């Protein structure tokens, strides 16, 4: 790779004509040939960023560099990007083949060569049998492949995908998801994929950028985002984590001892920040690392343990999602976070956990991760 597909956003800020701030100072670097997902709820600015990279919007402030060159003000065609639109934007009056060949028209490539190149990508996306159909005669998944073929026929260095899977049903979504991933690997170009679906992002992307209110909350690997969220917002948005809070009792040597409401004791390891004693902090505990025991079997409460009551169980196949209501200490208010344990299927049925059971939920010290940032940032649904 020669770095021509590297993307860098420097202090990018976008205010629309009506005064709304869509993107509020974003700095981001996407490696050449990476599969990057911009993830966030609707209105978080992810699509605006995509459209600014494509050249369909102009940032109010900041620079966008593609392959080291500032492209702000350049026409879309001059940027070496291609965009796949959410509704695909296939021209209804042109056949599949003509739609794809059309993309080469403006490049001054002669007709015969255009069709040869179009046929080559049509074969790549396995649409040869449908090459003469009109877009409206195709299924959603087939239309998506045409849109993909039309985008890659111009040999872009960056492919921009705006909610590419949102128009498909669940089954097709999973299939097209892996097809996109395969295509990206085969082409070796940078993909930037905008989505509001957490599982979609972590499934396809090497780099996941979680956004909220025009800002980047966290940019990391898929595993980093899911397993090691940086903020309460990311932990809540990604799911898979319980967000808890406590006051620092002591800290040092990468360990911290916390006291929660009602004198509950928690311990965290692995953070290299020195925490001031007496400061309130948030931390996350992975839901699949929470162990449940019937309360009767665990009379004494140790470190990293809570008493709770089971309020809901949801069978998920390999595990059971158990929602708990924490037994409130005197004077403690019910928090907005729910506490959930993902109990392995066999364990759940061996322990015969029922709704209404009193349980003790506990976890190993290593399962807790310190969070920074706004404790009250909840994803909007």
């Amino acid at each position, binding site marked *: 790779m020669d770095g021509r597909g590297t993307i860098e956003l420097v202090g990018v800020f976008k205010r629309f004509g009506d005064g709304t701030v869509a993107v509020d100072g974003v700095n981001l670097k996407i490696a050449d040939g990476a599969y990057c997902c911009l993830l966030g709820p609707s209105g978080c600015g992810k699509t605006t960023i995509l459209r600014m990279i*494509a*050249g*369909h919007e102009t940032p109010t402030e900041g620079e966008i560099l593609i392959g080291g060159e500032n492209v702000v003000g350049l*026409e*879309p*065609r001059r940027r070496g*990007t*291609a*965009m796949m*639109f*959410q*509704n695909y*934007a296939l*021209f*209804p*009056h042109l*056949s599949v083949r003509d739609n794809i060949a*059309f*993309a*080469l*028209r*403006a*490049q001054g490539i002669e007709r015969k060569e255009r069709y040869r190149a179009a046929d080559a990508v049509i074969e790549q996306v396995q649409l040869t049998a449908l090459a*003469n*159909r*009109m*877009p*409206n*005669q195709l299924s959603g998944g087939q239309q998506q492949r045409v849109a993909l073929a039309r985008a890659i026929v*111009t040999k872009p260095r960056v492919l921009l995908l705006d909610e590419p899977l949102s128009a498909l049903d669940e089954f097709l979504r999973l299939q097209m998801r892996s097809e996109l991933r395969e295509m990206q690997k085969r082409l070796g170009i940078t993909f930037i994929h905008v989505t509001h679906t957490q599982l979609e992002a972590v499934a396809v992307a090497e780099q996941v950028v979680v956004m909220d209110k025009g800002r980047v909350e966290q940019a990391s690997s898929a595993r980093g985002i899911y397993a090691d969220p940086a903020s309460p917002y990311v932990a809540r948005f990604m799911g898979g984590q319980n967000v808890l809070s406590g006051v620092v009792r002591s800290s040092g040597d990468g360990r911290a001892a916390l006291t929660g409401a009602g004198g509950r004791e928690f311990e965290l390891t692995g953070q290299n920040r020195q925490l001031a004693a007496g400061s309130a902090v948030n931390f996350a505990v992975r839901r699949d690392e929470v162990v449940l025991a019937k309360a009767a079997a665990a009379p004494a409460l140790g470190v990293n343990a809570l008493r709770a009551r089971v309020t809901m169980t949801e069978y998920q196949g390999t595990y059971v999602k158990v929602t708990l209501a924490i037994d409130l200490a005197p004077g403690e208010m019910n928090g907005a976070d729910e506490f959930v344990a993902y109990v392995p299927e066999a364990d759940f049925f061996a322990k015969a956990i029922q709704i209404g059971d009193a349980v003790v939920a506990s976890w190993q010290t290593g399962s807790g991760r310190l969070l920074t940032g706004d404790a009250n940032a909840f994803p909007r649904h």
Partner: protein
Amino acid sequence: MQTSSDRRPWTFYVLAAVFAVYVLFLYGPMFCIFVLSFQGPQGGLVFPMRGRGIFWFVQLVTQADTGDMIGAITRSIPLALIVMVLTVAVSVSAGLAFREKFRGAGVLFYLVVASLVAPGYVLGIGIGLMFQVFGLSTDWWSSALGAQLSWTLPFGLLIMFAVFGRLSRSYEEAARDMGLTRTATLWLVILPIVLPGIIAVALFGFTLSYDEFARTLQTTGGTNTLPIEIWSMTQNVTSPSIYALGTLTTIFSFVIIGISLSAVALIQRRRTGRLA
């Protein structure tokens, strides 16, 4: 058990009766005229039929005393074609302009729509008066053309609003992404996509002009368009010729509408139904 969904509710029969009356009201008179136009030389203006044949059709084109039908047609059709072309050109351009937001767009829109609301007859008198004030003579190709455009343009614009309102911006952006110039995007992407809408505007432009009476009456000058010629004929001709004329113009209108609708259907079928 007999479920209520097996029987139709009483409202079905009431609405069906209303619909039947409506259809009778709409097509009954037309059918009467159609039938009465095929009478023999003894034919009159009312039933019963006296003889059968195409006598009155022959009469219509050969007899000068039934009015200048051929002349009126040779004015009405070119006028309708001119109105059609201008309506398409202006409505499509204006529709494109309104797609971009510009200052005063709202005011302009209401000004345009106001001419739909203004009473046509009064508008016609006004245009006739203005031509007089400026010392210009009224004629079908000048003052009547303008009067008719005041009627067809708002219609055309409203149709184009509906058409462009459904046209996703992403088509233009996709074309721009491919590096197409704005002109190429217009001719190769936008206009082909909205072609069925353009045909609808053309059809409206043609038929609204071909039919127009109120605005044309005071603006057509010394020579009449077809509706006005028919109207003046009803003032002094009392033979089934007038029914023959009605039959002919109705057939002509149906042919025009049929051609337009087939064109739209053909485009739609090319884009969806047909298997390659």
